[in-house]
């Protein structure tokens, strides 16, 4: 009984294919961000590390919905502008980014996990990242 409770989620996590409803991972600077920052509010919009998967979640989409230009990720973006960066190969991409204390944004692009062990390990790593979020 106990073994069943432990192993069933593990087996499901290993066997269930990794899917997403969209290939795009969207990050948006909401309207009014600049004004809120000027008022002293500190809020990170972009995580310092972004994880993507080749083929199924491989497009980084940055959108500036604020009223002023913003340095967002690797570049300066005008109000209303989007930057769509597709990644086609497993890689680690380092971008200078003033929005982060480290001054760096890392985009980690992994191969899509197709084997049960890879899926399981990918899901565990994803959960750990989620748990370590502030």
């Amino acid at each position, binding site marked *: 009984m106990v073994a069943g409770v432990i192993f069933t989620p593990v087996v499901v996590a290993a066997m269930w294919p990794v899917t997403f409803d969209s290939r795009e991972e969207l990050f948006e600077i909401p309207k009014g961000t600049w004004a809120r920052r000027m008022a002293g509010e500190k809020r990170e919009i972009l995580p310092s590390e972004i994880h993507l998967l080749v083929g199924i979640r491989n497009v980084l989409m940055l959108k500036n919905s604020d009223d002023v230009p913003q340095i967002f990720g*690797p570049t300066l973006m005008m109000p209303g502008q989007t930057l769509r960066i597709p990644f086609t190969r497993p890689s680690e991409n380092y971008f*200078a980014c003033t929005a982060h204390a480290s001054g760096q944004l890392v985009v980690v692009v992994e191969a899509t996990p197709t084997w049960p062990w890879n899926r399981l390990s990918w899901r565990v790593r994803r959960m750990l990242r989620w748990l370590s979020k502030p």
Partner: protein
Amino acid sequence: MNKTLLVGALVLPLVALGTHFAFRRTPLAEQGLRSGTFEPPREAPAFSLDGSSGKKLSLRDHLGKVVIVEFGYTFCEDVCPVTLAHLTEVYRKLGSAARDVQLIYVTVDPGRDSPERLREHLAVFNASFLGATGTPDELKAVQKAYGVVARQVVSRNHALAYAVDHSSSLYLVDRQGKLRGLVPFGTPVDDIVHDLDLLLKMGT
């Protein structure tokens, strides 16, 4: 009379349809630009700096060409030489079409990169590459306009006084002077060739 009306009724929708497709502007991302794509594209930030040719170098002088803007410095030991070698290969693969492409290499190290040094350094890769330098304030303004970050750090190579950490992406400017694409460091040569080809065709 009826015949004329019938022909008109048949021809007019065809003309309208043809015009629609001829002038329809498909976003570049949909056409398959492999690098980062700005939508809507904005005017590429203008600059006028000291060129490696000995004359003033302005982005506007290259309207009509596809311009690659790179930020780097000649003492760079890792990112810049790799990118310049990739771009040399890109030019080779473009063949005669490379005549309509211009690389402008904007230094992030005005203290050491004189126009002469830029010219000598770039000529090692391709004689048509142009370098640009200026006062620290002029260069900072250009960096800010493109969202480029550059800061002096201690060099791992003790022979050098300092190194410069800087953004490593390339910026693609179309023939009309619009900032269209952002090419992350490490993008394969064939992908850059593909995108330049697309931008070259857009303006013809």
